[in-house]
């Protein structure tokens, strides 16, 4: 039996967009970006796809990418397929506007996972670069009752278990869990592979499975919002920078040191 791997991937606003392009619609309490800046697959989720494909490189495995959201840029979300993933499942529903609600998202994704018959291993990104929550995967693991290891920088599987190098503040831990398990990965896993031409061609032909909320049997209680958003604003930066200018760079450097000494900072 090939190993069944599920990857959870989210479509997000490009975090590397120019600062000037970032603005907030105060009434809708939403971040807006010009349509010239296309969304991306969350960076850490590309690491998750890479982790899954590395496993698939060394043993028989299938990789299914699952995403939920109010709407999708299909060419963007097909990137994991062009990297080498086998299947794409999109849970799309207008009712998902409340993207801040991790509880709701986790509920939805875990129902989709169950509908797909479950996975031996689920790999997620450590956090989504929109709300930087880092909690949906922990919720999915709680709801499915599977082991959860977060912040992986290396993921290996044996026939029955997963072995993860988990990042800790001053190094790493080696953590093991029996399958089925859920793992989140960080960028320390390494650069995700680039799609190959063949991969891109194959991805063009693949049709994603598209479900709506009503395709997943969700009870009303799980749909109640858990969080309320009162306000969203851009923080003020009122710092004025004093630029130290000398005759040349070396002189400026000396003046900077003197300034810091004068201010008793060094």
């Amino acid at each position, binding site marked *: 039996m090939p190993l069944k791997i599920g990857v959870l991937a989210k479509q997000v606003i490009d975090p590397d967009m120019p600062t000037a392009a970032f603005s907030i619609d105060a009434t809708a309490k939403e971040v807006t970006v010009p349509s010239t800046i296309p969304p991306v697959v969350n960076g850490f989720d590309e690491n998750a796809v890479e982790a899954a494909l590395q496993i698939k490189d060394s043993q028989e495995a299938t990789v299914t990418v699952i995403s939920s959201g109010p709407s999708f840029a299909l060419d963007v979300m097909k990137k994991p397929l062009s990297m080498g993933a086998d299947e794409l499942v999109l849970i799309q529903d207008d009712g998902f506007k409340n993207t801040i609600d991790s509880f709701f998202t986790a509920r939805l994704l875990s129902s989709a996972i169950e509908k797909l018959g479950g996975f031996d291993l689920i790999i997620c990104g450590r956090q989504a670069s929109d709300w930087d929550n880092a909690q949906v995967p922990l919720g999915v693991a709680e709801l499915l009752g599977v082991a959860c290891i977060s912040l992986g920088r290396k993921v290996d599987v044996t026939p029955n278990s997963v072995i993860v190098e988990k990042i800790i503040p001053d190094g*790493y831990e080696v953590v093991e869990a029996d399958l089925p398990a859920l793992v989140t990965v960080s960028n320390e896993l390494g650069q995700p592979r680039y799609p190959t031409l063949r991969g891109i061609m194959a991805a063009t032909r693949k049709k994603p499975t598209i479900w709506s909320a009503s395709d997943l049997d969700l009870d009303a209680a799980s749909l109640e919002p858990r969080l309320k958003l009162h306000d969203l604003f851009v923080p003020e930066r009122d*710092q004025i*920078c004093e630029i130290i200018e000398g005759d040349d760079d070396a002189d400026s450097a000396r003046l900077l040191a003197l300034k810091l000494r004068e201010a008793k900072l060094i």
Partner: protein
Amino acid sequence: MADAAGILIVGDVIDGQLGSTSKELLAAGRQIANNLNESVSIALLGSSTETAGTQAIESGADIVYLVNNPALESYHIDFHLAALKSLVDEISPRIILMGRTAEGRELAPRLAFRLGVGLAQDCLEVSIDTSNQTLLANRPVYGGSAVAVVSCEQTPQIAAIRPKAYEPLETDSNRSGETVSFPVELDTSIAKTKVTNVVKEESEGVKLEDARIVIAGGRGLGGPEPFSDLQNLADILGAGVGASRAAVDSGWVPYSYQVGLTGKTITPEIYITVAISGASQHMAGCSGSKVIVAINKDSEANIFKDAKYGVVGDWETILPAFTETVRELTQD
């Protein structure tokens, strides 16, 4: 939980002492509790937590729960989670404050999910709307480019607070409080994960989190070698050395150097950046610094929006001259 009341803080105990995150959370909790006219309790998990319990009272707690079971001796997510859930079920707090520490990053979301309630993640500030006992949490989103104000719709309301967002209160050895022993039963078969090895990759010299002065380098340094120049400067100043994610991703320094949203949060007196552009995700880890100094050749770089002092120019000339002057100045 109709009659939920009080604030519960999930504490941390390090080598028998109350952790600094706990003291910060007690300061946040005290403020809310005073506004609500309710009490602050703290949960200390493990064994030999009595000393930390006394310190917690001195730092603002009214009630200390010594949650004990041999399985809680060292941190294990499944045991800590189960123990906390028992305590919460027993005492029904209105609000739970946790630290977004390495452990809290897992514990807080999983506790919230297990209780079926929401979580205000990674908060910088919490306050209370006394008209409806709602906890309002300010939290950076989009890498710190925006701030969201959120509240939880269910009880208990849970917030995970970023370390160093609050100053601990002055300790007061005259404060009084109650200590309650809360033994829990734990089925050791619930452990789903096992740590088989721990590998430390400490950065050399002064610890980043504790340093009064930090010097950090970015992608503009162009390679690993300049980090030894930063280390030289740091040695003169007794400073710690940090880095941007771009420098870490390039393999120039280990992850333990990384400052930022997904690295360390630091609050030094002075933070000197060399060839770092000042992306919001980097600033998320250092914006609590008292004074930021920027050395960057691009006068339009974002870092100059946060810096108090800056030099626009090439680090290759600036750094040696700066280091030399610092050496002279600090000698006498």
